[in-house]
């Protein structure tokens, strides 16, 4: 749409448009020249094909009427008017005039802006002048002129009115209004004729809509009410006597006006004078199709209806040209060239101003509200503005007449991104996938190998046991140092020496310990030493009993008579050993029943001379646990003094206890370790009845031999396999 200057004319009386001057004093041209400032595309002169408009009364010297000058939106800018060349105004013109007066009054009341006094004054002046003119002049010609002007003014007033549910007039009408406002400070000539128009009645006097007739005052259907007195006289006739045809007029195009819902004052006057048919006013304009016309306004215009035959031809031609102009305006949005059609229209109908080309180029190119190309503009189809062209559409964010669009949530992935994603997924999945392991084959191989090894070992052990073979000789070499020392220490004992023996091994290791300690105890008992048994384990005393009973009872009556002293179990771990080392009597209280008399064991042999731990002749610890051995060494040995500490150890404890023997000074004076030590000891003392180690020696030898063989073969196989695999790897690397 072209940029339309909507400047509201100032209230200065000097700013009356030129056309108003022309209308007031000069005969208008037959074509109805319009002022040069008119913008292009304006409403074609409705009188372009008509005769020269009748002379309008001179405008009031007070200048432009207030309703033209007032800058409020409710103030309808006066439309450009031209003199009507018709000589005999029909009745419908009178009715229109009256209706116009009424609508103007209503506009003023609805806006409630502007100086009402001035509005009322000019209306009165208009009515007065109208009456005078009608009385003195040819009413027909003047009415024609007034009718044209009032139609235009009515259209213009509708454009700028606020508070009313009206459509905006087309741009051409607005442009015409602007142009008209900027010209002629004297005011339109037709206005002078309206000064004599009767005033409009107050709103409270307005009758009901149903009772509205042309002779009655204009009903105040809308909120605006005219405080002016509605004219009741139209010349010599009372307006009430003037019949108004109730026939519905022709189409608005034929009727030649756009009903805005309120009659202009001149229409009201015309109505009162009976020159305006209701049929004309009651016709619904085409441009306002779909609009919810106020019922009151429609009813108000019912009395002013015009028949199609009553409207002059120039009115219909004008409306046609208006449509053409609107279409031309729509086309101008996409081109900077002034539409030639409009120019032709201008030159044909009215003397339009030459709009400079730069003005055409000022219109927005990328206007979101640009009308559709090739059409007469975008017609609003929904909402209250339906039917209007080139309407600024409501913001979609505020008004949504349709279902909002549904945005897809799908992720848009390009081909390259998809390929990269697939590649990344392959990389990750490759790491998470576990390689197929040959567990089944390996399990079978290992299971068979396990059974084979176990069977071989069992056979090597069981055969000597079953055969009770003693083919394997006991070791005859010089015993190890620890065994020699142990033997020498025992040799130094005599029958009065008390030896403290601690049974600190587990029941499960009793077989080995029996084999290792049997020869030692045999030697010890041969020397005549007194045995005192202790244990820091609950099973110690029981194990001691079993050991002595199974290995020594047969050979030594001392054991069979249980002449040894068993002090039993004492708890406390390291603390108990330390207590024993510091005060054995207190640490190991003992009572014995002798002939039904409980006696203190420490007061009886062999403990009667024992007060300290160092009073024992020897301390022998029989254990399979290196920790236990270490505890005895750490807690008790420092308190022994010259008393030797010896041990009978299991083969598994010997590697960890040997450093105590090899230290200087020695913590352990001697020890016998495992079946081998026992065999050495048995071999060294040469006692045949001690055969524990002898009994296990064959099985021990064969089993150990088979074990060494299996270990050797396994190591050999692993070495060969490693060499072969390394050769394969090297060959594969060479091939690569």
């Amino acid at each position, binding site marked *: 749409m072209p940029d339309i200057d909507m400047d509201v004319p100032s209230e200065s009386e000097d700013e009356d448009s030129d056309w108003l001057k022309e209308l007031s004093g000069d005969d208008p041209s037959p074509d109805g020249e319009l002022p040069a400032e008119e913008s292009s595309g304006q409403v074609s002169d409705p009188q372009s094909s008509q005769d020269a408009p009748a002379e309008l009364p001179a405008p009031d010297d007070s200048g432009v009427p207030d309703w033209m000058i007032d800058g409020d939106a409710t103030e309808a800018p006066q439309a450009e008017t031209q003199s009507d060349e018709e000589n005999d105004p029909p009745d419908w013109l009178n009715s229109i005039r009256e209706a116009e007066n009424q609508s103007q009054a209503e506009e003023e009341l609805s806006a409630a802006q502007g100086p009402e006094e001035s509005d009322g004054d000019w209306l009165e002046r208009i009515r007065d002048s109208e009456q005078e003119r009608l009385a003195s002049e040819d009413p027909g010609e003047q009415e024609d002129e007034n009718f044209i002007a009032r139609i235009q003014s009515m259209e213009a007033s509708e454009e700028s009115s606020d508070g009313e549910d009206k459509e905006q007039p087309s741009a051409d009408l607005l442009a015409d209004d602007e142009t008209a406002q900027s010209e002629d400070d004297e005011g339109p000539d037709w206005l002078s004729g309206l000064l004599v128009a009767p005033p409009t009645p107050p709103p409270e006097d307005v009758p009901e809509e149903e009772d509205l007739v042309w002779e009655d005052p204009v009903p105040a259907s809308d909120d605006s009410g005219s405080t002016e007195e509605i004219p009741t006289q139209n010349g010599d006739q009372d307006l009430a006597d003037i019949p108004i045809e109730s026939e519905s007029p022709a189409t608005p195009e034929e009727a030649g006006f756009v009903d805005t819902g309120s009659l202009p004052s001149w229409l009201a006057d015309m109505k009162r004078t009976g020159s305006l048919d209701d049929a004309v006013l009651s016709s619904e304009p085409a441009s306002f199709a779909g609009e919810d016309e106020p019922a009151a306004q429609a009813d108000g215009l019912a009395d002013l209806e015009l028949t199609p035959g009553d409207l002059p031809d120039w009115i219909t031609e004008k409306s046609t040209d208006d449509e053409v102009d609107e279409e031309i305006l729509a086309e101008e949005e996409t081109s900077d060239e002034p539409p030639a059609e409009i120019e032709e229209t201008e030159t044909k109908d009215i003397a339009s101003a030459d709009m400079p080309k730069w003005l055409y180029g000022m219109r927005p190119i990328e206007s979101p509200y640009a009308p559709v190309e090739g059409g007469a503009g975008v017609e609003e189809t929904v909402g209250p503005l339906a039917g209007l062209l080139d309407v600024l559409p409501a913001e979609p964010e505020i008004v949504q007449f349709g279902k909002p669009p549904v945005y897809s949530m799908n992720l848009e992935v390009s081909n390259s991104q998809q390929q990269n994603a697939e590649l990344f997924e392959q990389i990750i999945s490759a790491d998470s996938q576990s390689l197929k392991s040959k567990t089944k084959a390996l399990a079978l191989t290992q299971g068979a190998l396990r059974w084979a090894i176990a069977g071989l070992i069992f056979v090597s052990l069981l055969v000597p046991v079953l055969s009770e073979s003693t083919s394997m000789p006991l070791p005859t070499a010089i015993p190890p140092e620890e065994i020699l020392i142990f033997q020498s220490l025992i040799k130094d004992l005599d029958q009065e020496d008390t030896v403290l023996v601690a049974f600190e091994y587990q029941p499960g290791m009793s077989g080995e310990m029996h084999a290792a300690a049997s020869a030692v105890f045999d030697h010890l008992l041969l020397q005549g030493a007194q045995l005192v048994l202790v244990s820091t384990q609950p099973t110690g005393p029981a194990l001691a009993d079993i050991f002595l009973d199974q290995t020594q009872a047969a050979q030594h009556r001392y054991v069979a008579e249980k002449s040894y002293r068993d002090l039993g179990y004492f*708890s406390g771990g390291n603390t108990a050993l330390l207590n024993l080392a510091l005060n054995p009597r207190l640490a190991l209280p003992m009572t014995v029943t002798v002939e039904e008399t409980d006696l203190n064991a420490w007061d009886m042999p062999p403990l009667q001379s024992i007060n300290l731990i160092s009073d024992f002749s020897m301390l022998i610890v029989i254990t399979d646990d290196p920790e236990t051995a270490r*505890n005895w060494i*750490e807690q008790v040995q420092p308190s022994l003094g010259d008393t030797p500490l010896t041990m009978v150890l299991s083969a598994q404890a010997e590697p960890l206890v040997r450093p105590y023997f090899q230290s200087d000074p020695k913590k352990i004076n001697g020890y016998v370790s*495992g079946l081998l030590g026992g065999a050495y000891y048995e071999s060294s003392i040469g006692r045949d009845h001690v055969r524990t180690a002898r009994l296990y020696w064959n099985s*021990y030898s064969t089993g150990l031999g088979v074990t060494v063989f299996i270990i050797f073969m396994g190591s050999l196989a692993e070495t060969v396999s490693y060499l072969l695999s390394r050769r394969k790897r090297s060959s594969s690397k060479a091939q690569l």
Partner: protein
Amino acid sequence: MIFPDIAPLELLGTMIAFVITVLILLYAFGDNPAFRITIHIFIGVAAGYAGGVAWHSIIRPYLIEPLSGQSLSPVSPFDLTLRLVLVMLLLTKLSSRTAFLGNPVSAYLVGIGAASAIGGAIKGTIFSLAGGSGGVVTANTIQLLFGENISNAPLIGLRLIFTGIMLLGTISTLMFFHFSAKSIPNQTPVRHRLVTILAWIGEGFIAITFGVLFAGVYIASLDAIIERLNFLWSVIKTFFFG
């Protein structure tokens, strides 16, 4: 089946031992209910026996008899009261609500045990073994290895060599557990080259030590199974072969 002339209770014990031994050896074919039953019986018997020993060997002579005046060892009232109080406080550990009352007693036991252990370790192990590392290889050992007629010079030399080997083994084994390294920007921390070499040597000594320990455990186990096989055979021979 021939029943030997032994006491019935001893015979019953022997038979039970035979059966239990066989059930335990069935574990060679995998876990089975018989093995599980035997294990449960063993645990129960061990716990019961330990409880009985604890009563007869500890509680009665140290607490009950002094309280009843039957103890032959003189116990002062203060000592006896202290024993009683400590025992009662220790029994409060049975309930979570009163467990806090036994905390002082537990602390006393732990503290004394730690003190005795630390003192014994320092005095009886660290100092003695560290001083004795150099004298591990004795003259007798060398004579045993190379004969008694070895002269003093080679003897001293060999002792030095073997002592040096022992010292190298000790130091290298300790260096194997030294993991301090110098941090280098943008590089993996690496130990000093000398430390790395000694650690590698110590790794060899550690491997040899583990091998020796494994051998000792294997031999002990071998002796145990030999003894059990002999027992089984002796029982079978007694009951079936006379």
